[in-house]
């Protein structure tokens, strides 16, 4: 008698799906247990030392001053955080724009036919890239801002519209119009720009003239801004020296200046390498074809090579932008009140450390994710459509 053939069914412990899910659950459980352990410790320790774990400290008065901002020590910590966030954005956005421009110039310089320009660009990149950023910021603060810029008593006033001193740089700024009407003017400008660009493209398609949509639109945009503003009764306030400080206009804080310069020159050295690599990755034939069409050197670079190079450069450029945003936290050591400095000072004044730093970290992570979302969109938009 033959035994009955067992039903050929895989036992559950050899089922691939079972194995994979149980493995995952074990890993997840370990991670969760670890996090739970950390969190339990945190609750116990804060409870025993009577340290608050919530965010009520945001409502209490900050009791510190923020240089260069319209902020009273009696205002809440929340407002201080807002100023910190704005200052981080201010140095990051301006820094990203300037670092990109400088980086592209130096990246092109590294491939220049001029021997001196090529060597100097290489030296710039190799020196700046291999120095700790902290050393660079200390240098820009001690060496550039404090040594090069004049005292307030002998401040420079180029064209009479700016004030430059080591207590800050005064820049003319607008005043007198409400924010809403400015926004209206701004949108009129943007829509005009768009319409003009459309029209120029149509003309270009019909007649074969160069479109120059950017220039037409840009000029209209600026004109719309200026005209709209004057019509709305806006004024420009010029900065001037008022005793020991700069009054009127907008004052660029010397610490801001030092941190900005350091971030720009450091990041530009990295961007230059990316740009150089991307230009070299553009097929040589593209440049030769442009030369064959009798384009000038500038046209060849600006209209043919660079657009293709930047397409390759977008993802690594995005990484550099993220680095710049995160590196702006080093401004904390140099009296620049960005987010990290605000957090540090408020913790020093008795705000609970963990919630305060969690808030700062959350902002940085969100800002990073938003930036990489932008980079991804740009990358998809400009990616070469392969046929």
């Amino acid at each position, binding site marked *: 008698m033959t035994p009955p053939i067992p039903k050929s069914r895989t036992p559950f412990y050899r089922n691939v799906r079972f194995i994979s899910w149980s493995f995952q659950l074990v890993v997840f459980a370990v991670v969760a247990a670890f996090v739970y352990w950390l969190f339990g410790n945190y609750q116990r320790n804060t409870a025993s030392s009577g340290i608050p774990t919530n965010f009520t400290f945001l409502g209490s008065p900050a009791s510190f001053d923020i240089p260069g901002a319209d902020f009273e020590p009696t205002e809440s910590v929340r407002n201080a955080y807002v100023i910190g966030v704005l200052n981080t954005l201010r140095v990051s956005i301006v820094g990203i724009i300037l670092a990109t421009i400088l980086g592209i110039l130096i990246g092109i310089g590294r491939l220049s036919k001029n021997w001196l320009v090529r060597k100097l660009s290489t030296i710039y990149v190799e020196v700046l890239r291999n*120095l700790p950023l902290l050393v660079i910021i200390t240098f820009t603060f001690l060496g550039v801002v404090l040594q090069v810029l004049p005292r307030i008593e002998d401040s420079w006033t180029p064209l009479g519209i700016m004030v430059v001193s080591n207590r800050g740089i005064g820049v003319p700024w607008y005043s007198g119009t409400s924010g809403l009407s400015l926004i209206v003017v701004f949108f009129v400008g943007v829509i005009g720009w768009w319409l003009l660009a459309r029209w120029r493209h149509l003309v270009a398609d019909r007649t074969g003239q160069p479109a120059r949509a950017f220039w037409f639109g840009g000029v209209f945009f600026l004109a719309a801004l200026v005209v709209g503003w004057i019509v709305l009764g806006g004024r420009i306030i010029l900065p001037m020296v008022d005793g020991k400080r700069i009054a009127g206009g907008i004052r660029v804080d010397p610490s801001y200046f030092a941190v900005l310069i350091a971030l720009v020159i450091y990041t530009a050295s990295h961007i230059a390498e990316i740009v150089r690599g991307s230009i070299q990755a553009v097929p040589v034939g593209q440049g030769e074809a442009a030369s064959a069409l009798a384009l000038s050197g500038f046209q060849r670079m600006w209209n043919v090579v660079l657009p293709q190079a930047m397409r390759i450069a977008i993802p690594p450029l995005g990484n550099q932008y993220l680095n710049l945003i995160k590196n702006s*936290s080093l401004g904390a050591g140099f009296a620049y009140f960005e987010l990290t400095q605000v957090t540090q000072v408020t913790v020093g004044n008795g705000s609970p450390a963990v919630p305060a730093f969690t808030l700062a970290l959350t902002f940085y992570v969100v800002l990073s994710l938003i930036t990489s979302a932008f980079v991804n969109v740009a990358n998809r938009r400009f990616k070469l459509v392969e046929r």
Partner: protein
Amino acid sequence: MTNAALTGRPARLWVRKNLFRTPLDAVLTVVFGSLSLYVLARLALFVFVNARWEIIERNLKLLLVGRWPADQLDVLVTSVVVLSLWGGVIAGIVAGRQIRKGTSVIAGMTPTQRLSDLGRRFGLVLGTSLLLLLLTNSSGPWLMAGLMLVGGVAGTWSGRRIGVRFLSPIVARAGILIMAAVPIATYAYMVSAVPLAQWEGFIFNLSAAAAGIILSFPLGVVLALGRRSKLKLLKMVSVVYIEFVRGSPLYVLLLLANVSLEFFVPASIAPSKVIRAMVTFTIFTAAYLAEIVRGGLQSVPRGQEEAAKALGLTPAKQMRLIVLPQALRNVIPAQIGQFISLFKDTTLAGLALGIFDLLAGAGVITQQDDFRGQGLIIEALVFVGFLFWVGSFTMSRESQRLERRLGVGTR
């Protein structure tokens, strides 16, 4: 082109071609030329005339090794000599293997070419070491440097003898284990002599960077595998970790580790600042390494994995034996890049945690009685910046060389 240009001497021709090709070129040359001459003159004036290097001379030991106990200096000397021997052996084995495989570049060089090649690669480091030695006024460091040199050369010599031979897998495996054990044993030897909390000065920067990159490696590989995994839960954990850490500034993480770690771990195991810094560096670098390794994994052709599967290897073996070795080999240059960036970032620990590292040392020595209030911070910063620069620059050039050799990106 005029006749004069064509008939000019080579030097003039070169200048014409490389400096004054077009009017714009001429302007650039004149502007940048005079600017760089001015900067060069100012720099030379500072370094050779105006700077007061006495502050560095007197504090050299403090800046480099911090307060490493004087009676334990022999431990330090032994360790660095052992490590240079170890480094020499590895370099020798690599060179020997290349000779065996016939891919060696140096094998075809004449001795003079070899020497100039080595000079180009490591001349800067050697020159800097010589400069530091000249600044000391005792014989100990000279002795140490001599021993290191002897160790390195002897290591390379014997390493090459090993490398050119074909070793049986068992011997090779044992050799790899021994080579991996050497730095760990050295490290244990140093820690048993001087607790980690007392590792200061440049030693801190070097050891924290090394510890960070080595410790983060396993975590980074696991995270990379997790992120590529088809297992959803695993992938989610990895992605959240990687993106959260990559979105956070290292400086803020260090500040957080400084003021709030005792809330999260029991007070009895709250570690010293140096360990705190190393743990933070590890956590931070792991996320970046994970992305680097992920790039490496993507660079391995699919066919490799499929072929491994066809051979009947289990998924774990496919990964361990076929995919991972190729992936990791491809990302060595990127890892060196990460190491350089961590090396520079160790200076943040000085500011955030108050560790006496090389850069923090620059601030401390300018407060000493003999040097206070004289603006000597510039001298101190130039010295600190120079040391970091020499290290980073040499490493980045070596990494570029390696990149060309491995042919990363050319396939």
